């Protein structure tokens, strides 16, 4: 092969392009650059391959190939395998799926839960989608959604009332998450503004509140909600445990949001404040029209991170005895029919949370990129 010697039969400049050398493009070159570029990299690559080789095939076999999808109980499941626990018993998750989604919500009323899920999807779509005709009305719908959903789920006013102790599973997880997310943002913004106020008393109150909430674990606040809060209320009065938990979760998330928003407010140049003052805008007008739109834009990644944290923290309600998806799952593990199928359960719940939180994180990343194009550095 003497391809690299220009043949005399071509006029200068007319030789057809040769394929690029194997060493610089193509899969072999890619591997040389990305996997085997130095002795250390060769070692790392071999170690990684070994780890994947020893972990992946057994995992795939356990999760998919040897798994059993339909069975009445664990014994039936294991009877279908070569040996007990050889594969995953997904029949357990399938059999409990309705319980995991709805909790003990009464069967004939479950259309209300489905309708709320549908409305939630619509509300999220309305908030996230750009260039939607009538965006304002979509946003208003999203603002009112928590109240509509609360009416749908709890009932009253023409619907059969359903006790909040019947709410459980993924439904409870989503209720805690969505309520916390919706109400902690405005509260957090107010706290952040209070912390940056020029009035010393207002500032002190906000600082103490924020630092106190951020200094203690959420569990202790939930304990307060479940055991101690009744002491603070007028004698004889009591209100729903779910309500108390929602308030605590909202307050907890608001303190973190406040710190994120404060970061955003500090990131603005003081020229923006001065310009707003020079235009003669009042405090609230200046913040609504000039300061907050810019500050919130900077703090979007932090806010979404706080929301993800809040969503993950919603599983802690299990510790004060509320049955979210994790609580129900663990209760189901003690069922003699499904005793000891913990790996299947935790994998399923982990996957559920991973899908929710990872998509939130990816969306925030995309949003960040989109907003950054406005002012290239």
């Amino acid at each position, binding site marked *: 092969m003497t391809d690299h010697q220009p043949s005399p039969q071509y006029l200068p400049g007319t030789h057809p392009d040769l394929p690029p050398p194997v060493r610089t493009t193509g899969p072999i070159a890619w591997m040389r650059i990305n996997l085997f570029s130095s002795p250390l990299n060769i070692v790392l690559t071999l170690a990684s391959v070994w780890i994947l080789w020893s972990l992946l095939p057994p995992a795939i076999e356990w999760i998919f190939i040897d798994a059993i999808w339909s069975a009445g109980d664990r014994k039936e499941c294991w009877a279908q395998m070569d040996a007990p626990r050889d594969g995953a018993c997904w029949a357990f998750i399938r059999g409990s799926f309705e319980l995991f989604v709805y909790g003990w919500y009464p069967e004939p009323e479950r259309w209300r839960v489905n309708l709320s899920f549908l409305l939630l999807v619509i509300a999220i779509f309305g908030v996230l989608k750009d260039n939607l005709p009538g965006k304002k009305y979509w946003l208003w719908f999203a603002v009112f959604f928590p109240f509509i959903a609360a009416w749908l789920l709890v009932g009253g006013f023409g619907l059969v009332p359903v006790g909040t102790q019947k709410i459980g599973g993924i439904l409870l997880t989503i209720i805690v998450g969505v309520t916390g997310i919706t109400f902690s943002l405005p509260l957090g913004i107010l706290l952040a503004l209070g912390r940056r106020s020029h009035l010393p008393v207002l500032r002190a109150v906000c600082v103490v509140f924020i630092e106190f909430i951020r200094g*203690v674990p959420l569990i202790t606040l939930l304990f307060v909600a479940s*055991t101690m809060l009744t002491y603070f209320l007028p004698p004889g009065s009591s209100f729903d445990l779910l309500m108390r938990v929602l308030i605590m979760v909202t307050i907890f998330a608001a303190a973190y949001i406040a710190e994120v928003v404060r970061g955003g407010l500090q990131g603005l140049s003081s020229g923006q404040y001065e310009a707003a003052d020079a235009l003669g805008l009042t405090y609230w007008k200046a913040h609504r029209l000039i300061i907050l739109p810019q500050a919130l834009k900077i703090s979007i990644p932090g806010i979404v991170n706080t929301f993800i944290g809040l969503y993950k923290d919603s*599983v802690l309600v299990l510790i004060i005895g509320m049955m979210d998806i994790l609580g129900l799952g663990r209760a189901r593990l003690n069922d003699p029919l499904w005793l000891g199928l913990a790996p299947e359960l935790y994998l399923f719940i982990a996957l559920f949370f991973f899908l929710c939180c990872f998509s939130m994180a990816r969306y925030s990343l995309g949003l960040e990129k989109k907003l950054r194009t406005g002012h290239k550095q």
Partner: protein
Amino acid sequence: MKDNSSQASNPLTRLWRNQESRGVIIQIITITLLFAIIALIGRNVVINLAALDKEFSFTFLTWPAAYDIGFSPFLEYTSQSTHLKAAAVGLLNTLLVAITGCIFASILGFTLGILRLSKNWLVNRIAYTFVEFMRNVPVLIHILAIYSLIITLMPPVKKALDLGGGQFFISNRGFYMPSPVFEPGAWMVGVAMIVAILSVFLFRRWAKKVQDNTGKIYPVFWISIGIIFGLTGIVFIAAGMPLSWDVPALKGFNFKGGMAIKPEFLALWLALSYYTACFIAEIVRAGILAVSHGQTEASKALGLRNNRVLQLVVIPQALRIIIPPLSSQYLNLTKNSSLAIAIGYMDITATLGGISLMQTGKEMETMILVMGVYLLISLCISGYMNWFNRRIKLTER
């Protein structure tokens, strides 16, 4: 001539329109509201407690606790001990898992962060998948899953897995390893170690001074290692090796001797560490990426070797970005350690805020104490990290 906007007839309106007096009014309203709320809550608490025939006092701390704590490595604790002692055991357990967790999370987090930056595609992707999966699943699920893995998949004590030469064992009741036994004369080794650490500290300061003045660089790291191990080793041999190992051995139904790490601690520590490590990995990665490439190029142009570039240019600048979020991760780990209650690891939330609360019915007192303890820990950590942050901050002219 009348200016309508500034000459309002009502004096109250005039007060409200003046920025200074409006500030005073708002603050007075805030204080009044605050005190009204506190007074209302106080009144409700007094009435409610009286109705339940309860008294607000901390004397319950001296009552016998009457419950067992399975894991108390630092204090002698029996069920006859007081609630105060139970709380102290819980606090020490919290601190134990928080400190060991922070150390392991930092090591793992920095490793993962550097692997995430690796140019090796496969390593990079594996680290990415691990970090993204782990940090998007609630830490409570990690804790419960690891715990149930240890409990259900590990063999029972009688068939404990031998992990190495009859010294290390793991079973569903925990991890067993040899524990050091100090013989008379061991104190000399301890003193030698303290002296070695002090002299390393002084040596580093001296070396930095020399470097600042003359530019001469000593191999500080290797000399430090040499001092610590050399001095301690010489004294250890000179004192007649006053240290032996107590090896765990299976006797009857359980292991005797050695150190046993309970599955509760193991699960909590592992789960908290790798969960937090995933967040630390992202922080480290972002910090190193934030040091502009020009810095690396400039230092290479000055003729610095690769490790010097890292040590003198990249890491000091990256640390400034890394430290503040890192400290909040340490705080998170400490606060997340309160999830111990879910698997029965006896930390401060599980002892004082859990069993003591249930037994004495002193919800207010126990919760105030537990929250106070966490606040104090948080203040200490953030105070220390602020001090550290100030120390490495860019000194501007």
